[in-house]
Structure formats: C-alpha cells, structure tokens
C-alpha cells in the first residue's frame, strides 16, 4: 500500500515538473507575454519598460531557474493579467467546479446505475430497445449543445432556471445536467453490459440453484460488476475535474477551473497557467489514488494481486 503511494507521489512530481516546463516553453518560445499585457499601440520603450518590470529582459536560463525554483516552493506569484495571487484564483475557482462535478456525477450515479440494472435484467423487449436508444442518445449529444438547448427550453421558454452564472441551487441545475449527459450514457452502458455478463456466469446459476433470492443474486452480480462500473465512473469524474468542464462552463458562464484554464492560457499568463496546471495535476493524482483505494475495497483480488 505504502509502496503504491510513494510510486504515485513520485509520478505526480515528475508529471508536475514536466508540466511546468511545458508551460514555460510554450509561453516563452511561442508566445509574447509582454506584448499581451500591453495596449496594442504600445511603443518599443513601453514594451521594454514592461518587460523589465515583469523580469522578461533577463537571460532565458535565469528566468527559467527562478521560475522553477519559485514553483518548487509552490510560489506561483501574481497573475500577470489580474495582479492577484495566482493560487488564490485557483482556490476560488476549484470549489465551484467541484460543486458542478459533484452534482453532475451524483445525478449520473443516481440515474445511471439503476437504469443500467433495469436494462440488464429486463425481459421486455421494448424496455430494452427504449433504454438502448436513450443510452445511445446520451452518448451522442454534445454537452455544450445540450446546455444551449436546456437554456432555450428551461430558462428562456419556461423561465424555471437562470441562464448563467453562480448563485443559489437553481444555478447549478442546468449546467450539471449538461455535464452529466455523456457520463450518464457511459455509466448506463457499462452497468448494463457487465451486469448482463456477470448474470450469465456459472456462479450465478449455482446461487440460483441453491435457492438464493433474486435480490441476493443481483447483489452478488452487481458487486462483481462494480469494478468495471466504478472504473468508468471514476474515469469520467477525473476527466471532469481536470478541466473538461470548460465547454459547459462557457455555455453557462460558470466561473470554474475549466474556464480559468482557458483564460490563463489565452492570456499567456505564466503564473496563472502554472498554478492551474499544477493544481489540476495534483487533483488528478489525488483522485487516482482515491480510486485505487476504492478498488481495493471493491475487489480484494486487486489488492492481493499487487502484493
């Protein structure tokens, strides 16, 4: 167990190192952060003054060592565009994305897993057909387009929910539904397929023959199908936390981490970009470790296999 964590942490550190190098490289080699922070008609003198005040006039290696040193101490400095501490922005934005992802993935689990179970166990053809078409639709509708349609129907036509921004619980409803649509399709699908496979295995027949109630049988099958379901589910959650919410956040003007990534990168804001990237990686690494622990709980075979 401990060994796995050491390994994971080490990998996380290497990842973070590569990531901050990538940020530095991209911003310095391809972009022009000084020009970005000036009016378009700035004179060369103004440019030079700004470059000096931001420290961009020093030799590149010196900037690089300073930068890596600061990042290693988790000191990302102030954002170039907002002048506020970069980590502060990340810390205000992340909880909002957590909220969105939490509600969205909560919906996914609450609707997806039962639906998958129903579809796997149903004997009625039409339920199966209907379920499959719905699943397929959920898998195929792009989140951002669904978000716009939701706004059209539930905000503009019916007036039930606000169109954008953060505020009360009403603000969370539409974006989290839009966010949930893809994961929902995948969760239903994986639950249905793995559970169906599981129900055809010999041990189920044995259990039924022994006279176990259908509920108990289903419970055992579900427990064994759980690993696959949990894998897909956690994969989707981690993706969302890694900023894949950017499209939904854009549609609903939701000021979360996804839109912060997009803003930071397009503003060539090195401190902010570094802070966001490192924070996202951190969340991903931690989330992956949690998923590992969860696997061990769900399926003791994995834990044994790794020893």
């Amino acid at each position, binding site marked *: 167990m401990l060994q796995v964590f050491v390994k994971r942490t080490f990998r996380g550190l290497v990842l973070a190192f590569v990531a901050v190098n990538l940020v530095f490289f991209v911003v310095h080699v391809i972009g022009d952060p000084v020009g970005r922070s000036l009016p378009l*008609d700035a004179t060369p003198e103004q440019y030079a003054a700004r470059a000096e005040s931001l420290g961009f006039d020093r030799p590149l290696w010196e900037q690089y060592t300073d930068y890596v040193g600061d990042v290693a101490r988790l000191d990302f400095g102030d954002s170039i565009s907002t002048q506020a501490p970069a980590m502060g922005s990340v810390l205000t934005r992340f909880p909002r994305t957590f909220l969105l992802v939490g509600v969205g993935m909560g919906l996914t689990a609450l609707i997806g897993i039962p639906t998958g179970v129903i579809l796997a166990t149903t004997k009625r053809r039409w339920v199966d057909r209907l379920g499959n078409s719905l699943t397929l639709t959920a898998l195929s509708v792009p989140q951002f387009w669904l978000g716009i349609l939701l706004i059209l129907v539930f905000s503009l036509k019916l007036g039930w929910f*606000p169109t954008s921004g953060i505020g009360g619980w009403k603000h969370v409803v539409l974006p989290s539904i839009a966010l949930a649509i893809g994961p929902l399709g995948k969760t239903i699908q994986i639950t249905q397929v793995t559970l169906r496979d599981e129900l055809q295995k010999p041990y189920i027949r044995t259990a039924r023959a022994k006279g176990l109630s259908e509920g108990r049988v289903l419970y055992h099958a579900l427990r064994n199908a759980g690993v696959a379901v949990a894998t897909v589910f956690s994969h989707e959650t981690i993706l969302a936390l890694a900023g894949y919410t950017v499209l939904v956040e854009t549609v609903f003007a939701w*000021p979360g981490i996804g*839109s912060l990534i997009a803003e930071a990168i397009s503003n060539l804001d090195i401190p902010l970009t570094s802070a966001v990237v490192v924070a996202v990686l951190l969340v991903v690494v931690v989330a992956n470790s949690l998923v590992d622990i969860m696997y061990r709980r769900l399926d003791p075979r994995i834990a044994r296999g790794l020893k």
Partner: protein
Amino acid sequence: MISPKLTRRGLFAATGGALILAACSDDSTESSDTKPSTGDSTGDTPGSGAEQAGGTEPYEVVVAISRDPEQLDPHKTGDNAEFIWNNVYEPLYRRSVDGSEVLPLLAAELPTQIDDTTWEIPLNPDARFASGDPVTAADVAYTIESIVHNDLVLSIGDRLEGIASAEAVDDLTVRMTTKTVDPIFLSRLTYGLIVQEGQREVEGWPQSGHNGSGAYTFDSWEPGSQVHLTRRDDYWGEDVSAAPSTVVVRIIPDKATQLLSLENNELDIVPELSPDQARTAPVSARVSGTDSTLIRTNTLNGRPLATPELREAGSLAIDRQAIVDVLFEGDATVAECQIAPATEFGHTVGLGEAEYDPDRARELVAEFYDGTPLSFIAGAGFSPKHSDVAQAVAQNLQDVGFNIDLQITDSREVLAAQFGSKDGFADLLLWTTNAELFEAIQSMQWVRGDHGFSAVQNDVVDAAVAEVLSTTDVAARQAAYDTINRTTCEEHLNYYLYYLDDFYGISEDIAWTPRAEGWIILKDIRPA
C-alpha cells in the same frame, strides 16, 4: 475568447466642445456658476421620478462586463472596467451625460489659464474621501505627478501625457503645466481619478485599502466572477439615497450569454450591444454616434491597393446600405465619406456617402487586378458585429473579382502588427474608432506616426495631420480636417462604412440614461 477592445471610446469625446470651453475659460463666469454638487444632476433620467421619493428601499443592480477588471489599480485598468473606478474615485471634471459640456466635480470651477501652458484649478472644499479626509490640492498634485511620471505603463498615462507637472499652490488650488499648448487640457482632466496622497505606498494596495471620494466603495473582486460595490451613505456630493444600495458587476465573457441573462432578468445593464441585440432586451437605450467603422487600405508600394483604380473598385464594391439595413436593422447610419458625422467638430460639409456600384467595380478589377490575394484582417472584439461586417465586406469584394484572404482574430499578436511595423500591415484592416475627429486623428497617428512612417502614404494628409496636432486655432484645425477628410475620401485611402450609436440593454426595474463617454455612473441609476 478574449476580446481586446481597440477603440478608445470616449477618450477625447466631444473635444470640439471642450476646445471651445477651454478657449473661453478666461472669462468663464457663466460656466463657473455651475455648482459642483449639481455637476452630475444632468445625468438624471428624465422619466425617473424616483428621486423625490427620497429614501427608497435598498435594491441591487447587476451590470455585465465582458472581461475581468484586470487591474485593481484605478489608473491601470482597461477600458471595460474603467467605469467601476469612476464610481469609487472621481476626477476633477466630468462630462455632462450627453458629453457636450465639461462640469466641475472635485474641482470647484473650470481651470483658469495663467499663460499658454499654465493652468490653475480651484478645488471643491466639500469634497471628502471615504476616510473622511478632505480632497486637497496635495492629493491632486500627488495623483497627477504619480501618473505622468510613472515608469509603469498606465492605461491612463497617454490620456494625461500632455501634462508636464502639477503642484499645490495652497490647500484648495492646484497649478498644472502642459508640455506644449494643449487644445484638450480640460478633456484630459476628465480622466485622472484622484487618489489620496500616499495612496500608492499604502500597505496592500491595490488589493485593499481603497479610499476614494466616489459614491461607492469597492467591496470585493472575485476574479472571473464578479465585483461588488456598496453605496456610501456619507457621500460628500448630492443625495444618493435613491441610487442602488449595492451593485454587482458580473463578468460574463460571452455576449450571447449576457443577452440571454438579460432576457431572463438576471442583469440590469448590458453595455456594448448591437441594435438588434439591444432590441431583445426588456428596455434598450442608445447614446448617439460615438463609433465610426472604416477599413484602412494598405497603399504601400508593391501592394495591389497602391493602384488608385483598385482602391476605388474596393470602395465601389461595398454595399454599406445592406450592412446598415440588415446587420444593424437600420439603427446605424451609412457613413459620409469621412470619419465624423455632421454632429462632430471637424466634419466636412458636402462629402456625401461613398458610391455603391458593383458593376463599375467589376470592370475596374477586370482591368487592373492581377489576382494577388488581398489580406484582410478584422479584430472580432473591436465593436459590435465586427466579425459579421468583415465577412459581409469580404463577400462584396469577392463578388467583384477580388481574391480575399480574410482573417478574423482576437490574437493580440496579429492585431498589434497592424499598429506596429509596416511589414505586418494587412492590405485591408477593419477597425472602429471614436467618431470624434481629434481622437480619430490620434488613432490615425498610431497607424502612421509613432513608428516613423506613414501608413496613408499621402503627403497632403500627413501634413494636415501634423497641423491638427499642433495648433489651437479653431479655423485652422477645421481647414486641416477638411483636407484630411477630402483627401482620404477622394483617394479612397479609407473606406468609411457606418456610424454606430452605443446601445445598452436595460432591465425594466431601473431607469438610467447612458452617457456619451460610455461610463455607467451608478449614483445616477434610479428604480423604475
């Protein structure tokens, strides 16, 4: 996603008026009658009867902006958030709502001219910062000096750059000197927001410690989300108890989302709309003709548009009327063949609209065009509908036989190249500037002057621009403007497209009249 706004709207709005005021400020008796405390009362909405109601129920107003304030320093902030600081801090003078007059605010009356380059400004003895300290001459001198002698690039810097120095004569009198004879000195002073002496050295500034004389205090800023302002009940000026008690400035990057939120009654004021967008708002308001949109042609040697006939063909090909009728649903005006509409100082009478004759254009293209692709660059975030206008114009030009390579971008690198070295110049550049001529000339100067070459490549225009920038004589300036207007029109150096008013979407809950310079002065808002 990020929209750099290139227009410097209202930078020197209605300078014609300012010029006249400045010119007669020696006998400014009639102007100085204006009581400072009523300086902004012209801003009251005619229909708003809420004021006599006195203490109205506290209410909140939500204003949308497209981008973060960027800077918490009121002297560094970008165009889009300038209004926020104009509610927390105040300048010496502020324009009347329609922009035609400059009225004293922190000053007691208009400046007195001592000699060509020296001015004295008396201060209003009632003015107080939020801390309760009076606004003194030392504070004003400190502010102006810290702006004009600051090494950092302040967004406000070039607006005040004509000022050489400021010093306190006594507690309530400031003396300022300008570098040269300055025809727009008074207009400049509608910018520098006055901070208290030593403000820049306060611990934690500008993240905290804001202490302005405005009617609102700056409460908080959540980057990417919102800014909170609260009304000051101890504001030194007029009674503001009917103004919104709290104001939320929401940052919504996307215009479509702003509109949807407004329609859904989540916002009270949305600025920078196109007319058709404003029409979807519960209430729309407009303030007249501030923006002028045109296309700059690249006449540098070796480029196709150095040929006068091809420039003419381009101008003839553009269906300006369709752009105005369809994209702006009739709520813009086809430009006369010059930057400024008739209401502005420097307008030349009788130039008329540019001709639309695609058949003639086709003939000219067939005769003179060798097929070299013309690069056409437009910044999407310049002004409402810029991207649509660019595409429509490109279609017009393609229809008469030009080979157009259109690039619509918000890339600052690409756009900055249009104002930098001439190697980066596109053959056609769509841009929007303030219709007021002095500002337009200043913009033109970026295009031609700072970097030592003329983008216009026309000696007559260059000479006239130089003349405009160095004289205070009204008749001489008008004559120079006439030369610029006539030449750029007749030689088809610029394609003037349309004049567009500023449109705002407003909710039904408030009454408010937009201002010519584009700021939202919150204390003028009343409940509907």
